[in-house]
């Protein structure tokens, strides 16, 4: 009676495993990444320099770290558009805690992360308890966080940051830049969280079928608050890493972060309607965007093409997704649907 009894089921399960692998949403984007990488590696001698490859990784690290939080939020069926503002506010609070309050850099960093957690918690409560629509709500709280940032800094930069504050962004662990290590650690932990823990399963459940989740009797509110809080934390972490990348604390830090972050998640295969997405996919998405941007530089194309390329990639990713879900086909595009 057991499923392994007959010899054919063994073969079937092997075949099922192959099908499973092929069905992984990451397989397609990973293939795209490999092809893109190989082409650039072959075509451009500048591209394949180790220094350039490290540069790409450094460039995508902040985007990736923040995008891990966004992925979690999108998988749960929501959006967090306040991430860039949280990153900026957390970075500036960190710098001010050091400069004005005279705190040691590590303590200042913990304070900055705490601000991110607080902002995220607020988002979570507004989304879960007050049932506000996450897109507009985080757009609004994002404006508030940005406003608070400019209010407390009066729009002024803080220059000459100590090593303790910039280490995350420019320090080295052995030969490897610290922020690259940090990116992979965050990606690993977030992957475990999403795929191996009860919390991660709950996130995928409420994103996949909210009504059924409520029927099961899980605490949807608490999970939502947890998701946004984590998103706030990772945004703050990204902002603090940016302090080191930039070298100075500029109030406008984090502005312009949101689009690449959402792009990485979407290109990486995160389903906009929720329920499906992976940290590996997001990392791959960020890498594709990073290589695309880098290609413009090493091929000496106009860097201002960057936004166009990025925007088109998102449109492409959305189109592919619609096709895969069967929401779109050539008959619809050609207007022959009825």
């Amino acid at each position, binding site marked *: *009676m057991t499923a392994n009894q007959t010899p054919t089921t063994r073969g079937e399960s092997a075949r*099922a495993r192959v099908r*499973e692998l092929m069905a992984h949403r990451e397989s397609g984007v990973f293939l795209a990444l490999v092809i893109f990488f190989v082409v650039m590696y072959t075509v451009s001698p500048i591209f394949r320099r180790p220094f350039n490859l490290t540069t790409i990784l450094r460039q995508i690290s902040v985007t990736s770290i923040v995008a891990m939080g966004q992925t979690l939020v999108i998988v749960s069926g929501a959006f967090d558009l306040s991430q860039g503002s949280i990153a900026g506010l957390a970075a500036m609070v960190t710098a001010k805690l050091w400069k004005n309050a005279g705190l040691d850099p590590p303590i200042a960093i913990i304070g900055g992360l705490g601000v991110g957690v607080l902002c995220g918690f607020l988002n979570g409560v507004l989304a879960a308890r007050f049932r506000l629509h996450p897109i507009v709500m985080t757009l609004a709280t994002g404006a508030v966080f940005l406003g608070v940032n400019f209010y407390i800094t009066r729009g002024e930069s803080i220059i000459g940051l100590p090593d303790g504050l910039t280490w995350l962004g420019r320090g080295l662990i052995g030969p490897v830049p610290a922020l690259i290590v940090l990116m992979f650690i965050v990606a690993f932990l977030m992957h475990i969280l999403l795929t191996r*823990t*009860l919390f991660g399963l709950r996130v*995928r*459940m409420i994103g996949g*079928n909210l009504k059924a989740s409520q029927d099961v009797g899980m605490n949807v509110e608490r999970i939502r608050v947890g998701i946004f809080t984590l998103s706030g934390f990772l945004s703050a972490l990204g902002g603090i890493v940016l302090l080191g990348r930039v070298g100075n604390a500029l109030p406008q830090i984090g502005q312009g972060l949101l689009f690449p972050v959402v792009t990485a998640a979407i290109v990486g295969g995160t*389903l906009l309607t929720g*329920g499906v997405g992976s940290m590996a996919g997001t990392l791959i998405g960020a890498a594709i965007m990073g290589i695309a941007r880098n290609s413009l530089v090493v091929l000496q194309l106009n860097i201002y093409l960057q936004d166009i390329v990025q925007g088109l990639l998102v449109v492409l990713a959305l189109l592919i997704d619609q096709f895969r879900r069967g929401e779109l086909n050539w008959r619809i595009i050609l207007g022959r649907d009825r």
Partner: protein
Amino acid sequence: MSIEHAVEMRGISKRFGNVQALNRVDLELRRGELLGLVGDNAAGKSTLMKTLYGAVLPDAGEIFIEGQKAALRNPRDAQALGLAMIYQDLAVFNNLDVAANVFTGREYTRRVLGITFLDKKRMYNESEALLSRLRINISSPKLLVERMSGGQRQMVAVARAIGFDATILIMDEPTAALGVKEANTLLDLMSELRDQGISIILITHRISDVLSIGDRVMVLKGGERQGILNVEDSTLEDVEYLIVRGRPDGSG
């Protein structure tokens, strides 16, 4: 109350505004039988079953489950008494795999450093065992439900209900959206479950389904019970007559 009955409903009435959805309906489900519940649209089939499942509170009447009077205020009360109802919309998670669906809400976990990890291996093993015990033909508990057919999704929903130790299963039009072959596979599963001792109520428009696998069939019309027929001594015409004309004594 008779102990041979898994369910007894006595004099169930329910009014929605001006509509008398149910009028003093009695229902007896014998232990281990498959009872078909048929009738035209708005005959009260779903309302009666939602009453049994605690999703609709009746205006009058009593419900006995395994001989005990039951106070059902919500579906959770009903589930605690061994009932499971599978609605047409199924409430499965298409984005998750079979095992996650089977164990929804009662996942096996392990706590490590204060973090609750899923015991995936155990859930895969147990859902595989459950599927094979129910003779459900799904090749792996790791398959994503979104890649499955409508019939397989029904079976996942059934496996989930049985996994929750349900002994009384209510299914609302499970074959309505299925092709012939899939519908037959599902009907086979239902008679297999019946043979394993599960008591089943099957709401359906397909009278032939009930006549092929059911033990008895109950007919509702205008919120009133028209009769219960033994499948063995009934024809399609007998059932259809009751559905359309009501009780032979002319009161229907």
